[in-house]
């Protein structure tokens, strides 16, 4: 093979690998990304039950219910709308009423959000950014929260 042919072979192989990778990326992006919604978004968009989404907001004070078998129910609110979340398992250490939370899962037929993952903040000064944005959007963001969430830790 001449130098030119070799280079051509190399370039075409690389292109082939890149095309395969691009195809993988595009198909994976179509199937496995999860959209984030505030409770208001969920209500407004009339999300179809069964679609996988993330929701975020504050755990509504007084809404937390613990049942047998580690079943937890609570309401997530952005100040405007609230949505009931059901979760079976162990909630994170810093999961508390009145605090920010992000849950991932699906809506069931009755409008209850069945979560399989619940994430809370990592320390008392930190609020998930999605929650901050959701609260800002619904106008329930207070500047003192801003101060507290500014400093996030590793």
């Amino acid at each position: 093979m001449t130098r030119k042919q070799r280079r051509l072979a190399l370039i075409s192989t690389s292109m082939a690998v890149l095309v395969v990778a691009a195809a993988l990326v595009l198909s994976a992006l179509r199937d496995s990304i999860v959209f984030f919604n505030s409770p208001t978004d969920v209500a407004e968009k009339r999300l179809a039950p069964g679609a996988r989404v993330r929701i975020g907001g504050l755990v509504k004070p007084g809404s937390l219910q613990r049942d047998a078998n580690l079943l937890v129910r609570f309401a997530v609110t952005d100040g405007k709308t609230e949505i009931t979340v059901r979760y079976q398992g162990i909630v994170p250490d810093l999961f508390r009423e009145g605090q920010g939370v992000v849950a991932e899962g699906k809506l069931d037929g009755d409008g209850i959000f069945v979560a399989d993952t619940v994430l809370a903040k990592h320390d008392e000064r930190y609020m998930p950014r999605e929650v901050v944005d959701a609260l800002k959007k619904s106008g329930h963001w207070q500047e003192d929260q801003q101060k507290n969430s500014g400093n996030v830790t590793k």
Partner: protein
Amino acid sequence: MIPELGHFSLVLALALGIVQSIVPIIGVRKRDAVLMQLPNSTAIVQLVFVLASFSALTTCYVTSDFSVATVYENSHSMMPLLYKFTSVWGNHEGSMLLWVLILSLFGALVAIFGSNLPVPLKSLVLSVQSWIACSFYLFILLTSNPFLRLVPAPFEGRDLNPILQDIGLAVHPPLLYLGYVGFSIAFSFAVAALIEGRIDGAWARWVRPWILAAWMSLTVGIAMGSYWAYYELGWGGFWFWDPVENASLMPWLAGTALLHSAVVMEKRDALKIWTLLLAIVTFSLSLIGTFLVRSGVLTSVHTFANDPARGIFILAILVLFIGGGLALFAWRASSIKQGGLFAPISREGALVFNNLFLTTACLTVFVGTLYPLALEALTGEKISVGPPFFNLTFGPLFVPLLFALPFGPLLAWKRGDILGVAQRLMVAFGVSLAAIAVVAAAVNGRSVLALFGIGLAAFVMAGALTDIAERVGLFRVPLSVVRQRAAGLPRSAWGTGLAHFGVAVTLLGIVCAGTWASERIAEIKPSQTVSLSGFDLSFDGLAQHAGPNYRELTAKFTVRQSGVRLATLEPAKRSFASRGTTTTEAALLTHGFSQLYLSLGDVNNDGSVAVRFYFKPMVLLIWIGAIMMMLGGGLSLSDRRLRVGAPKPAARPAAQLAE
């Protein structure tokens, strides 16, 4: 007084850095030997100043000087001494100071150990190194000064984030930074080579030890971080495809590619332009990693601060070095002569294959990590790209890479014989099939994918052994000759074998722990028992302890296997009053390479506790494999050929000086 001294020495380091950034360039242009020698001493003095600054900050932490703002924010007088040390870099400001400390350390090391480098190349390298240093000194001094005072000084600090009060995290950032920053040397060498417009196999030989050292640190750093997440976050997962983890994985992938392409360049004088590009890209990804983690664009445990000024400053550094590096590459790469020829089926070809798949895999991680950011910036839509994406893209790309791995070292340089190699790998292939058969017979709940993974791991392991066996002539020549040959085999060959074996060990750990892990979440009352994978776990009761800066609630469990008592496990919850925070301390029982993992959930008023109980088969192999890779790198690094075999600059620079 001490913080001011620390601040002042950092300013001195900056002043010296500016001199070192400019003077060597003039020296090289004017061929002035004195000016070109200058960075040899300034690089060392810079290290001394940064070290003084870092020591000053450390002193403030150790003596709990809460008049310093960062100490107040991140330390507590009751904290154990070890964590007072480690909280120096457990925050944004301090970690950036650690970054420049390591950067100046590498600069000084080049100045000291680079005596066999041609003088102009060395002084250009140190000059470029100093550009990077100066931009980070400025960043620290202008936006993240760790020495700012508080008036009046508070009596007590706010404590280090409790999840960081852990030995695993104490060593994780320095190792990671050694890796990130180590690649800056490769970048500086690449930029220097582009400025000079001259590059050859010797260049690769000089830069390879630095790439190896950086790669080793990064490998262990990532493994350390993964083990930390595994036992500290209480979920029992070892890799979350979290953007911050990806930020460290990307430079690792590019760095691994660079490591291999530099071999081709050293041995065969080929792939020169590609290696230069990879060197620039690898360090760029290290910078992007720093940027992603530090600027607060990502929501993660690692994000220290959401100060926009810092984000913009880091972005400017990013644009300057990545943009500048790539622009210089585009402008000067054509001036570099084409390298040697090789057939597609050859050792070089195999390494190109390696590079192709590693960089493509890196690209998919890059897309998955940055796509959510881009989408949000463009449309405001918030998405998260989770593990399924990476499993679907990264996984398929790694399969051909791993399958080809045993072939590479067995192929000859220049023109290889693929059929001959395949023949020599027949045994390895047999081993792989046998492993699949054994596992399929022994384990129920078999999954085709897992069996394939086992087979692949066995193939790579046997392939690595085949390579060594072929080299020493095992089974072909008498044993005494084998011993002789083994002693004569260069350490880099052993290193390659060990590192490749380590890759397979990690793969085996991931496949086993991923497929056959069992999990049980239960609420359990005292004296009750739960069972999982043949282990019986009985709950004996709760106990309270007081730690130095926390209160601890420990649950005592006894583990039995078929009635025989194995151990007592004591998972705990620690509450840190200073931060109003709780951490979960998982209890681990190592059983061969497998682990029992027990973490505590909520404690109820009736004395029952929620527990997460995992059995993770072969999970330790994941990190043992990473350590093997690191040791393999270490063996290669200790190879005499790498250290002293580099041709002495001899008359060449002198001749140039005389021009």
